């Protein structure tokens, strides 16, 4: 043990440590402030206003759509009863085919590639951790859902067209789309407004957020996307079509 300090000389060592403490305090405060400011809420009021405006516009357009739809049905009825009935049937048929997915579609859109994360530590042995670095069926489902929600008109996953009865599920380590096995990398092609589709996927906090962080997803806009036709069965063996109600 060193000799005890004489008189008041110890105050210098205390001062020295006070300087260090001052620095530590300042740095701690800074780091705290950093952590808080990184989640700033500056733009929310503006975005909220924009959102409300768009919502109102949407409602108005929906009403317009209902009106136009009704008028269209009326005219279609008149046409079918009059001359040129066969042409109209052809038109409705083509439209129905597009919606049903039984015909291939081409147009501008995006191509999304999903693959297992290259950021996984190869020495990792815990199964639940490894799972987080792999692409799952729920990832593909979330992506296709988001794309449809953002206006995608046709989507295919590894060449399998997604139609109304399509399923995306996994059996053990294998992903099945339309009950057909597909293998990674998973290529999702979607036809729609490329900007909208890309922005919807890149939304911070959105469905693909985690995938972007782990480098598992790549979204590319494409001027000419070809989505193949659905090649499965389209027979309804249980359901029967219901007659359309008037004025809908």
């Amino acid at each position: 043990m060193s000799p005890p300090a004489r008189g008041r000389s110890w105050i210098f060592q205390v001062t020295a440590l006070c300087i260090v403490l001052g620095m530590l305090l300042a740095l701690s405060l800074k780091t705290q402030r950093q952590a808080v400011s990184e989640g700033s809420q500056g733009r929310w009021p503006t975005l909220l206003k924009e959102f409300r405006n768009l919502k109102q516009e949407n409602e108005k357009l929906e009403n317009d759509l209902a009106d136009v739809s009704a008028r269209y049905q009326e005219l279609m009825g008149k046409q079918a009863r009059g001359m040129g009935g066969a042409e109209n049937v052809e038109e409705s048929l083509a439209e129905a085919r597009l919606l049903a997915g039984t015909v291939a579609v081409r147009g501008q859109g995006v191509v999304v590639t999903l693959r297992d994360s290259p950021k996984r530590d190869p020495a990792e042995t815990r199964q639940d951790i490894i799972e987080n670095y792999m692409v799952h069926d729920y990832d593909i489902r979330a992506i296709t859902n988001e794309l449809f929600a953002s206006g995608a008109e046709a989507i295919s996953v590894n060449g399998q067209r997604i139609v109304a009865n399509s399923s995306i599920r996994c059996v053990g380590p294998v992903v099945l789309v339309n009950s057909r096995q597909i293998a990674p990398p998973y290529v999702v092609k979607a036809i729609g407004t490329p900007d909208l589709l890309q922005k919807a996927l890149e939304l911070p906090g959105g469905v693909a957020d985690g995938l972007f962080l782990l480098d598992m997803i790549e979204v590319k806009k494409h001027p000419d996307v070809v989505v193949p036709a659905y090649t499965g069965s389209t027979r309804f063996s249980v359901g029967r079509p219901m007659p359309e109600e008037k004025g809908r």
Partner: protein
Amino acid sequence: MSWLPVLGLVLGFLIYWLPVRVPAEYANYLSLATLAGLDSIIGGIRAGIEGKFHDDIFISGFVANTLLAALLAYLGDQIGVELYIAAVVALGGRVFLNLSLIRRYLLTETAMNRKRDRVR
């Protein structure tokens, strides 16, 4: 003379306006070092007033406490139990203890001084 440590604090705090950045993962360790520093300073002042201040004990105290606190924080992270709370409680407890000893000493000293002056 007694304002010197305060000056030191203010001086050290000036680093707040320097473009230094600390990665967010170290924020926890930083606050533990701050607490250990506070404990060492208050402890040092108490020892100084009692005439029992030792250089090596003072510095080694700060370093050892900070290291142990950091070790507890790191260990706690690994095993999922917030062990650093032990350091916070221990160091915080000592700050209050030493502060009360300083307070008693100063008040007793002034009481004694007053008595002495009155006797004179």
